[in-house]
């Protein structure tokens, strides 16, 4: 099977699903910029409470001191019966639950949080809480590591690499969900003014807690012999995450934000490509980074055959980049980065092209890092009320050919529908011709809606001279799609250029796209609709974090430490 189209066979747009499903974390990813901010702004993190029993059940608090502000990650750990353990969003109990709270937590607030946070969606939060999350222990790893440490030994790093984490989050909520602080407030009145920065801090501290927890349990198993995890082994531990369809509609519903992320990424690439010549030093560093990525691909594990093939192909492609760059070095021609990126886009699969770009960005922090601090945009959509319908038709014709040329009378092009599940209010995918509920479909099929609008406009010549405002007075049912199309005329990375209702849609591609901007690694698809990933795998823990190591943990391998 052909894994992907190569870039030479398709006109370049990074917003097709197969391309989106090939993205990797970069220096602009939110986990990277969050960790950078800890160092740059001298955030101080202390464990102010660690009230756990011998089995590791109880409460812990990590306080983050930022200038004159304090935030608290409050962790609740409880016994979980085997039959209650599930990664599914409909689970009702978890090993651990968390909230990131604004300020220091007093006893009264702790009581309130204790009553609500372990309940997750069934509890209530206040605007003083930024984040709500939960995590389950890795059945494969947690107990094993606790027992190994209790016996005075260090675990084999290969065992850690097999799983990747001690705790696995199954949801990290923010932005007004379940009573949490709305992002418009978080952005204006806290230090978390970038998208998902508070989420990424919470996840980083949950990782800290996971190690503190396993070491605590180990100590109480055998206080005389127990040892702590060695830094060089510990650093390979990430925090796991199971991600399902909830992330996919986000990309459709927040197109301006998606555009912002992508445009910042391509601004970095454009500026780097404009550099006239590559220095030897930079080229050597680039080759080193590509080799590191290749090493990561050789180590990363997945049972998914499609992902396995992608990883193998990517490793082969990276070898080609290394060879190409080494020959460039020998020839010492006046080549620039554009030459190398052109080589990748003309000869290699998407994954390798993406890796080349993210590793190139690593070499230019002075370009990338300021861009990473400007990743936010409002969700406001607006109409260009004075545009004529004639002009709108031409715009659609020019920019939405991917949508208007699809034959929606064919079942395979309208096969899927997106809905909100009754059980946990989460987005789900249904099969239109096999399942009930299509009449309650969410308006996420942008291609289909654009197609309907376009055909209506083409057929009604009498409205071509109307302004959009005049047209919408008489045809208000097109309000949503026209507003979207007009808004995104200034946001060329905002729209997924594919029909996400088609039978062959791989939603996991959309998940990977978003996860790459979060900074997730170790992609392990479990179906076409959900996957497991790790965050912060290879990142220094807070006690080891410093300005020298804060940036060099991307594509970490077992021998990176």
């Amino acid at each position, binding site marked *: 099977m052909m894994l992907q189209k190569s870039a030479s066979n398709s006109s370049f747009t990074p917003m097709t699903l197969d391309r989106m499903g090939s993205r990797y974390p970069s220096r602009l990813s939110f986990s990277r910029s969050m960790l950078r901010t800890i160092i740059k702004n001298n955030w101080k993190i202390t464990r102010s409470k660690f009230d756990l029993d011998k089995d590791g059940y109880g409460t812990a608090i990590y306080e983050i001191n930022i200038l004159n502000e304090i935030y608290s990650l409050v962790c609740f750990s409880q016994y979980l019966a085997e039959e209650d353990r599930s990664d599914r969003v409909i689970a009702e109990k978890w090993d651990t639950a968390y909230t990131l709270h604004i300020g220091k937590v007093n006893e009264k607030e702790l009581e309130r949080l204790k009553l609500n946070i372990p309940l997750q969606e069934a509890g209530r939060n206040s*605007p003083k809480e930024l984040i709500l999350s939960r995590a389950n222990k890795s059945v494969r790893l947690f107990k094993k590591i606790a027992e190994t440490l209790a016996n005075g030994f260090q675990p084999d790093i290969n065992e850690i690499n097999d799983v990747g984490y001690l705790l696995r989050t199954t949801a990290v909520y923010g932005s007004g969900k379940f009573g949490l602080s709305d992002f418009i407030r978080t952005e204006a009145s806290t230090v978390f003014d970038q998208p998902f920065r508070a989420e990424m801090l919470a996840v980083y501290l949950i990782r800290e807690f996971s190690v503190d927890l396993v070491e605590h349990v180990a100590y109480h198993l055998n206080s005389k012999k127990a040892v702590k995890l060695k830094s060089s082994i510990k650093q390979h531990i990430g925090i796991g995450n199971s991600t399902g369809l909830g992330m996919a509609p986000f990309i459709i519903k927040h197109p301006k934000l998606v555009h912002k992320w992508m445009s910042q990424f391509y601004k970095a690439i454009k500026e780097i490509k404009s550099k006239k010549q590559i220095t030897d030093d930079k080229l050597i560093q680039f080759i080193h980074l590509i080799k590191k990525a290749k090493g990561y691909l050789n180590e990363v594990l997945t049972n998914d055959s499609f992902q396995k093939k992608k990883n193998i192909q990517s490793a082969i492609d990276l070898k080609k980049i290394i060879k190409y760059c080494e020959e460039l070095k020998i020839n010492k021609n006046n080549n620039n980065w554009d030459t190398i990126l052109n080589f990748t886009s003309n000869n290699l699969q998407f994954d390798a092209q993406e890796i080349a770009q993210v590793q190139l960005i690593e070499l230019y922090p002075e370009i990338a890092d300021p861009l990473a601090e400007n990743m936010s945009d409002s969700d406001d959509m607006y109409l260009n009320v*004075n545009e004529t319908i004639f002009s709108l038709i031409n715009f659609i014709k020019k920019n939405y050919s991917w949508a208007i040329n699809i034959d929606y009378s064919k079942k395979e092009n309208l096969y899927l529908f997106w809905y909100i599940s009754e059980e946990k209010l989460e987005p789900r995918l*249904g099969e239109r011709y096999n399942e009930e509920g299509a009449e309650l479909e969410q308006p996420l099929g942008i291609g289909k809606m654009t197609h309907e609008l376009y055909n209506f406009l083409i057929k009604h010549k009498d409205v071509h001279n109307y302004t959009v405002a005049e047209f919408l007075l008489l045809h208000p049912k097109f309000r949503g799609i026209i507003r979207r199309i007009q808004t995104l005329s200034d946001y060329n990375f905002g729209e997924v250029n594919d029909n996400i209702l088609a039978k062959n849609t791989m939603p996991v591609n959309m998940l990977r796209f978003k996860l790459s901007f979060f900074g997730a690694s170790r992609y392990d698809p479990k179906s076409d609709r959900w996957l497991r990933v790790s965050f912060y795998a290879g990142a220094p823990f807070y006690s080891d974090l410093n300005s020298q190591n804060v940036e060099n943990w991307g594509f970490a391998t077992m021998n990176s430490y």
Partner: protein
Amino acid sequence: MGYSFYEIYITSQRAFRAMGFPFGADEDAGFIIAWLELNHLNGIKILHNLLNSIDHKYDGIVKIENLNENIDFKNSTILMKGSGLVDYLQSISNQKEKLSLNIKNCPDGILFLPLLYKISRKNNYVELNFNNSKNKISKYKIKDKEIAFETFINQDLLINNEVRIIIKNDKENLENLFQQKIITQKTIQDNLAQSINTNENLWKEISQIANKTFVPESEESRNKGAGGGDAND
């Protein structure tokens, strides 16, 4: 129980969708209700009072034959017709220094306020007047995303359920009109810092309507969803 702005918005928007509002109109109506509720202007209560008249009766069409005459909403709600009309006014206000329009048979004039607040950054001054049924006119003056409010005795200005919208683009200094500000960026942020407390019974009823947009998961979806089949490793 307190709610976030997001929760009020998304639940209202879903309720509108369940009641037959099309994509776009449901978002605008949801925004109107959430914004009013955030600013203590009884969005949920107004929505609740209107449920019977809007449920599966969506009609957002506005026919304007002559702008110099009054527009007649024929007692249809602003939740359906308001956003189209405000966009239209915005489109023609660019060509005029001052635009004034009366809308007859237009109950709950306050529902225009969030829409006018949204467009206010594009105009020098926007004003909303309506008869508040106590023989007084409520006047909301909007400029630079700030709103001042006053009431005055109706001097045959507006009949019951009549609304007047004024949009000015001239450069007149209007600072003296803005003594009694009731809504500013600061009041909005202050309100966001508190949970929004709304009448639980009304909220429950609206939530139940919103719930009609949800679909029970099929077994197949369940098995393919996150955690399905491979949960415990």
